[in-house]
C-alpha cells in the first residue's frame, strides 16, 4: 500500500505532495450518554484524545467525524465546537470517528525541509567514504524510500512494509515528472507543481501498482 508521494526541489522546498489510502487507521464508537470516559483537548486545530483508552482508541487519536459527518478542525457539522458537543448531554447518542487527522499543508512544507536536511546530514556523519544521503527509513509502521536525481530533486514515497518494488516506482514517478512537468512550457523549475496531466498519470501509476500487488498477494494465498 502506498500512502504518500512527495517531491522536493534542490533547495529543499516541497513542490508536490499527494496522499493515497489515507485513514486506514480509523475507529468509530457510539456513546449513548454523557459522559465519555476519555479526556479531550482542542489543540493545534484538532480535537485530540488526551487521556483514556477504549479498545483501540488511545491518546493521540483525533476526531475526524461526528455522527458520521467528516469534520476538520475543532468545529462540528452544525458549527458547534466539537468539545461543546461532547460536554453537552443533549447531543447524545453521539457517534465519533477517530483517526490520525490530515497533516496540514504548512506542516508538510516543514517536514519536507526537515527531510532535506536529514538527508544531507546522513551523508556527512557517514563512517564510510562517498556515502549518499538517506535512501530508506524504516519504522514500525511504514517505510520511506527516497531517490535523488543528479539535479538534486528528491522523490520520496511512504509505503507500508508489504510494498515491494519501490525503486521502480520512484523511477516511474521521475519519468512522469520529466514528461508532464518539465516538458510543460508554462512550468517554472523548482516551483510547486500544478500540472493536471502529472496528477492524472501519477494516480494511474499508483492504482496500477496497488492492483498488481493486490493480485500478487491474492495469488500467493
Amino acid at each position, binding site marked *: 500500500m502506498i*500512502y*504518500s508521494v512527495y517531491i522536493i526541489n534542490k533547495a529543499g522546498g516541497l513542490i508536490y505532495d499527494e496522499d493515497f489510502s*489515507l485513514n*486506514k*487507521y480509523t475507529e468509530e464508537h457510539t456513546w449513548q450518554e454523557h459522559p465519555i470516559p476519555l479526556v479531550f483537548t482542542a489543540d493545534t486545530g484538532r480535537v485530540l484524545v488526551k487521556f483514556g483508552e477504549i479498545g483501540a482508541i*488511545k491518546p*493521540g*487519536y483525533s476526531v475526524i467525524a461526528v455522527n458520521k459527518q467528516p469534520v476538520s478542525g475543532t468545529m462540528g457539522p452544525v458549527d458547534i465546537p466539537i468539545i461543546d458537543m461532547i460536554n453537552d448531554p443533549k447531543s447524545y447518542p453521539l457517534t465519533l470517528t477517530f483517526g*490520525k487527522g490530515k*497533516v496540514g499543508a504548512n*506542516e508538510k512544507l516543514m*517536514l519536507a525541509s*526537515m*527531510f532535506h*536536511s*536529514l538527508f544531507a*546530514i*546522513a*551523508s*556527512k*556523519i*557517514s*563512517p*564510510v*567514504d*562517498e*556515502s*549518499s*544521503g*538517506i*535512501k*530508506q*527509513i*524504516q*519504522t*514500525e*509502521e*511504514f517505510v*520511506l524510500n527516497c531517490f535523488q536525481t543528479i539535479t538534486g530533486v528528491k522523490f520520496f514515497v*511512504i509505503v507500508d512494509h508489504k510494498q515491494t518494488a519501490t525503486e521502480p516506482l520512484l523511477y516511474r514517478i521521475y519519468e512522469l515528472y520529466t514528461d508532464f512537468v518539465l516538458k510543460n512550457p508554462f512550468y517554472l523549475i523548482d516551483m510547486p507543481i500544478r500540472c493536471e496531466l502529472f496528477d492524472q498519470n501519477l494516480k494511474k501509476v499508483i492504482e496500477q501498482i496497488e492492483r498488481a500487488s493486490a493480485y500478487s498477494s491474492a495469488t500467493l494465498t
Partner: protein
Amino acid sequence: MIYNLYIFNPMGQCLYYGEWERSKAAAMSRDEEFKLVYGMLYSLKSFVSRITPAISDNFQCYETNKYKLSMYETPSGVKFVINTGLDWSSQAISEMLQSLYKEVRVY
C-alpha cells in the same frame, strides 16, 4: 561489517563511543560529532512521528547506499546507535542492541 557505535543518555550526552572499521574521519571534533548525531536522531524521531500515516510510530533505522544506521531506544530514553554495512538485517541488529542493553552496564 560494523563501523561504529554510540550510546546516548536521555539528556543527549554521549556515554560511550566505539569505533571498529571507520574509513572516513569526521570533518569535526569528537564532541561536535556526538552533538550532530544526537541532534539528527532527535529530528529523525520527530519527523517520523509526524509524517507517519499511523497514529504513533518509532524510528528504527535508515539506509544510505553505503551504510545503515540503526537505533534502539530503551523506555528510559537511553539510545544505542550503530552504523553497520548494508548486509546486516534489521532483526539481527535489533537483537544485538537489545542484548547490549541487557548485558552491558550503562552508568
